[in-house]
């Protein structure tokens, strides 16, 4: 403030005085806050501090490495899941086709050894094969 007195500076002094008065009153008020309120405030502060990203005592290099690794992990997780899914599908497909081949094997071997099971005559494919082969 300039030393010369103007209406504004007088006003400012009065404002400042009022500000100090209000400040003292309000500070007296906050000193008498209810215990549940101060407990909630304390809990809020603890919660905020618990949310700090790094705990004291961790080495910076180690934490950088760890955070880099966790970043990589986060990025790789969807890829790994997709890869796993593809593996499961391939394996399922493989076992299904193996089962199919096995079931065909029985009929084929029976045909070759000329011990046709009764089921073979019920098979429409067998009928047409029979007709085909007898025509040749």
């Amino acid at each position, binding site marked *: 403030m300039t030393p010369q007195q103007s209406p504004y500076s007088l006003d400012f002094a*009065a404002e400042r005085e009022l500000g100090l008065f209000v400040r003292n009153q*309000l500070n007296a008020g906050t000193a008498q806050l209810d215990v549940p*309120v101060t407990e909630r405030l304390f809990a809020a502060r603890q919660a905020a501090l618990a949310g700090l990203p790094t705990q004291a005592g*961790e080495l910076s290099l180690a934490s950088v490495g760890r955070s880099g690794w966790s970043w990589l992990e986060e990025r790789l997780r969807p890829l790994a899941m997709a890869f796993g899914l593809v593996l499961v599908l391939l394996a399922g497909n493989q076992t299904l086709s193996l089962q199919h081949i096995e079931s065909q094997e029985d009929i084929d071997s029976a045909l070759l050894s000329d011990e046709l099971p009764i089921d073979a005559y019920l098979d429409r494919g067998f009928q047409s094969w029979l007709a085909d082969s007898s025509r040749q």
Partner: protein
Amino acid sequence: MVKAPAGSHPQATGQTLASRIELSDFLAGVERRAFRQAQFALRDEEAALDVVQEAMLKLAEKYAARPAEELPLLFQRILQNAIRDHMRRSRVRNLWVSLLSAFGSGEEGEPDPLESIETTDTGMLPAGPQGRLEQSQTLSIIESEISKLPARQREAFLMRYWEEMDIAETAAAMGCSEGSVKTHCSRASHTLAAALRAKGIEL
């Protein structure tokens, strides 16, 4: 390990620990005032506590690494934004409530007269030390007058005189010019001074 010369950059661990302690100290010092500020604006204890917690979490989450001298400004800014967000949300909620209650039966419209008796009854209590009674009366008058101020005026006034921030800091925290901080402060103090004079309170 070589001892670091005085004035060099502290180790990362020391810095984290220091900023944690600084943040803890800062929050401990400011939390009650922040709660009162939120309460003046929201007039609801629970909402004020929620808002203060939200502001603390945000400060710790985003700005914990900032130097201690920047924390008051950042915290005020976060707090005022949190208060404003809360008011906006509750305004929308109140709109819905009033719309819905307009359709429902208006049975709970009448305020309970017992409630108002309870709050004004403090004068009937057996007087303890006279000074303390007067002080608590003055305080409640001041608090209710501050609560009645327009939001921006209250923010500016409390930041300047309660948080002891200078005009530039207040302007930065409020996101406005220094000129409007001065205007807000001077209007707020005129209103407050007139209200206190009308209630017979001497400074």
